[in-house]
């Protein structure tokens, strides 16, 4: 059993009106040292797989099919074991190829 956290962000060049509005509000509140605000989504879920490679494959397929819009979004994913230790990390930017950084 694993836990997956998927972070979905807008592709770099796509305009983020929400990020723009948050940044100007932070400015008005005096946070002049905070900038370049960009917003995205995070999705947590449990992955009922016994081995790490199966878990990675399953999550990659879910991201490609549903969780991230390939036209406008990239995603990064971290997989944790039951002890909460990170056992894998991969992202769409590498053409979806999974890079197991088992620690």
């Amino acid at each position, binding site marked *: 059993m694993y836990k997956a956290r998927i972070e979905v962000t807008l592709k770099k060049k796509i305009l983020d009106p929400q990020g723009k509005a948050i940044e100007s509000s932070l400015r*008005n509140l005096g946070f002049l040292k905070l900038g370049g605000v960009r917003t995205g989504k995070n999705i947590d879920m449990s992955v009922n797989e016994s081995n790490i490679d199966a878990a990675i494959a399953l999550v990659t397929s879910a991201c490609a099919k549903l969780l991230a819009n390939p036209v406008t979004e990239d995603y990064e994913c971290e997989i944790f074991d039951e002890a909460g230790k990170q056992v894998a990390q991969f992202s769409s930017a590498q053409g979806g190829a999974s890079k197991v950084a088992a620690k």
Partner: protein
Amino acid sequence: MTTGKVGVVVFPGSNCDMDAYNAFGSVLNRRVELLWHKETSLDGVDLVVLPGGFSYGDYLRSGAIARFSPIMNEVVSFARKGGLVIGICNGFQVLVEAGLLPGALLRNSNLKFVCKQVYLRTETTSTPFTSGLKKGEVIKVPIAHGDGNYYADDNTIKGLQDNDQIVFKYATAAGEITAESNPNGSMLNIAGIVSRERNVIGMMPHPERAAEKLLGSDGGLVVLKSAVESLN
């Protein structure tokens, strides 16, 4: 000459400001003016209206940015001193973000924006906004929102009940509180509440959109009327 002046705050992105202005001005023919969010004075207003709309595009959280507008400092101290404040839809969201009312407005449980007429049952008449209604009376008022799902933790809810602060609940035409009549998943079908001191009301339904029969219902006029009449 009826005393009392109504002030409708305009945030960048408010889009029901003129609807409120016209409901008080041409339907109830009261003195009403618009208050730009950058102002630092309420200009002698006796009733402050935070209108519906998408202040700051509803970015981050509905009302999360508008609450920091310069005029909100004035509105908070006006309310603390007992001044009457009505927050409608986005206005209600600004009031909870500003801490003038308890709880929060989350995303509608069906994840969809919903615009339709709904029935509201009056839960308390001991407020300046519902003095013209009878307990249990049902009025037809439209809603139009995507984040109207009222939430508060258990003891806040208990506090609202114990202090008779729940003003309106979503109901059937016959006044029953049912799951089907709840359009957004709000706890206890809550559609509107008042502050502990009973001078600040927040409600998701739009009374200013139910001020003329021509537009489908005048069931909301009594709320605006009660508020201005309590100023005399």
